[in-house]
């Protein structure tokens, strides 16, 4: 198996819905410890790894953020032994029925997401009625046993390991944004054999899918000079065509719009072209719906940039990513860090 596939497999071995990321952080922490000068956890559970630069003190610093949380489900009730669930983040209920799950109660209880039966002759109800999801988790246990092992507020994770597809593609749940975490990890690895003058903070942020809370608080704690988010964007494919969508396998997207500093965007583009790294330009007319939104307005404001890895079927259990895109994103991050002159901040022009 290819090293990137293996890294992704390790990062996907645990579930980390927003606010409950610690099982994934536990997997990532030793990896970053082996690659960084200092590793610490924030008060909201984000992981910070410092890779010191060689420039003279006081050195400027860059924060590279990728969110480690994913969308998910939480138990909201027990209806005659069937569990009702409420979404964490932006969940499409239509894609959930029929998926195997684990309910993380007093013990791990397996179950399946289902739809309740419809009376004979009635049109079967869909997964959503009006705006309310009508999906359930069936553990096969009787109602009293359910109450014994499971409480409202327990996390429900999708029990589906990733699978390799043709041509170096991978499918699974939570590729948004373990793909970004993998890219940061590969970048840290590459930086250990490169020279760079800036300090680099790799940050695995929590709670992106709900509030950007991890990114906002870690940025406040670290107060970097430049901020960068690495996330996923919509992958092109059958039924998914138009300007929102980008080719899976076509390299990362460099976002452009009010959330991104034009000077920073220009440097990324320059580096990508110089290194012949495949990429596309992603227009983001207003909100990027990513950590970059929080980073930009931290403290008294920060020049911010957003890179995205195209993922098909985002926010489903069958997201698809090209491993090559993860590798190209890491290569671009590394080349960008290496390119940073000690006085880059003063060179970065607003109006070029």
């Amino acid at each position, binding site marked *: 198996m290819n090293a990137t596939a293996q890294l992704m497999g390790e990062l996907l071995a645990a579930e980390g819905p927003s606010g409950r990321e610690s099982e994934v952080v536990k997997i990532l922490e030793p990896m970053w410890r082996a690659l960084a000068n200092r590793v610490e956890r924030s008060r909201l559970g984000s992981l910070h790894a410092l890779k010191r630069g060689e420039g003279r003190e006081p050195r400027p610093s860059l924060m590279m953020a990728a969110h480690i949380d994913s969308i998910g489900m939480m138990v909201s009730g027990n*209806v*005659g*032994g*069937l569990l009702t669930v409420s979404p964490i983040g*932006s*969940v*499409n*209920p*239509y*894609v*959930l*029925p*029929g*998926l*195997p799950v684990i309910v993380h109660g007093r013990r791990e209880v*397996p*179950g*399946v997401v*289902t*739809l*309740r*039966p*419809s*009376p*004979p002759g*009635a049109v*079967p*109800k*869909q*997964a*959503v009625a009006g705006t309310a999801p*009508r999906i*359930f988790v*069936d553990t*096969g*246990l009787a109602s009293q046993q359910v109450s014994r092992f499971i409480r409202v507020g327990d996390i429900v994770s999708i*029990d*589906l390991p990733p*699978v*390799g*597809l*043709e*041509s170096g*593609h991978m*499918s699974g749940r939570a590729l948004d944004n373990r793909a970004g975490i993998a890219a940061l990890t590969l970048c840290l690895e590459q930086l250990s054999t490169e020279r760079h003058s800036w300090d680099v903070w790799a940050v695995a942020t929590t709670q992106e899918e709900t509030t950007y809370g991890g990114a906002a608080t870690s940025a406040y704690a670290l107060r970097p000079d430049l901020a960068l988010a690495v996330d996923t964007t*919509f992958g092109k*494919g*059958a*039924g*998914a065509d138009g300007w929102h969508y980008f080719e899976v*396998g076509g390299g990362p997207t460099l976002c452009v719009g009010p959330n991104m500093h034009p000077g920073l965007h220009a440097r990324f583009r320059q580096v990508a072209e110089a290194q012949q790294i495949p990429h596309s330009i992603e227009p983001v007319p207003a909100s990027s*719906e990513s950590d970059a939104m929080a980073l930009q307005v931290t403290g008294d404001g920060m020049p911010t940039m957003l890179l995205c890895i195209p993922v*098909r*079927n*985002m*926010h*489903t*259990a*069958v997201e*698809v990513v090209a491993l090559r895109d993860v590798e190209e994103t890491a290569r671009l991050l590394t080349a960008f860090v290496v390119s940073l002159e000690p006085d880059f901040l003063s060179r970065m022009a607003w109006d070029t």
Partner: protein
Amino acid sequence: MMSTRPERILLLEQLCNAVAVSGDEREVRQIVLAALDGHVDDLSVDPLGSVIAVKRGTARRRTRVMLSAHMDEVGLMIVGTDQPGSLRFEIVGGLDTRYLQGKRVLVGKHRLPGVIGAIPPHLLPEGESGKVDHASLRIELGPGASAEIGDRAAYEPRTRVVGGLVFAKSIDDRIGVATLIELLQHTYRAIDLYAVFSVQEEVGARGAWAAAQRIDPGLAIVIDATAAHDQPTDDDSENTWYNSRLGFGPAVYAADSRTIYDARLVELVRSAAVRRRIPIQTRQPTRGGTDAGGIQRALSGIPCVAVSVPHRYPHSPISIARIDDWENTIALLEASLRILSRTPAASTRARRGV
């Protein structure tokens, strides 16, 4: 071939992990042939692909009893390619299409992994729900991979047996197939057992009908899996149409949409349950059908009875059944065959309509 309990479970897992969409039952057929080879008196594959295994009794006068469980499952067929690696598909049998979006599938003989995708919720127009008609869904294999038109596809199997429960694709009717293999471990003195592992049940009980015409049995017992709609209903109305319930034992059929079952045989099965103190339930005489829909009208008519293992979420990616219901089904059928074996004239009378 004496199997211990874990072996029985392993076989069930293996059967549920196989893919055998109606008309392409190869994977299950191979498991059945391998499991029975050398353990029965005759083993053959009929012209439609059903497996027929014979276990003869030792008495001079013997009744020919047909047992039938279907090997096939509902699924998908590839009907076209849009762009490389992106496949159009059609439904085979009564698949519940509400479950298709966002699932993993296996395509073709080589079990190529693929996914059925969905539009990201971020990009759904305001007020739109995300419900998609199955005709607009595609199976994605990834660029560079391809499939043939006519290839079958099915949900990726993820069987899990835990805490007395089975979570699996195609419990309907691999649990019947496994039951039949169990029943063939024994010999019944005055019975020649003709066990039919039938094809194409999900598209109209075609395999069982042809096999019945070949075998000409005195009576037939069908072993299937039936829906347990025993949860709170989706409109919160009182659930008076649960069909069957998990944990209440094997479901004996009085009638379904295609068959009124033979009253004498229904009573025989019930008396076997009473005698052996096996819990049973009578399936509500509602929707659905079994191989009996084909068998009963074969030749000059064949008396039929059917027994099913209850399972929730039929024709979806993962159904749930209980091991105790299954074991009680095996015990009930063994007990019924013992009674039949002691009354060899029963089937003859049944045929004459006496």
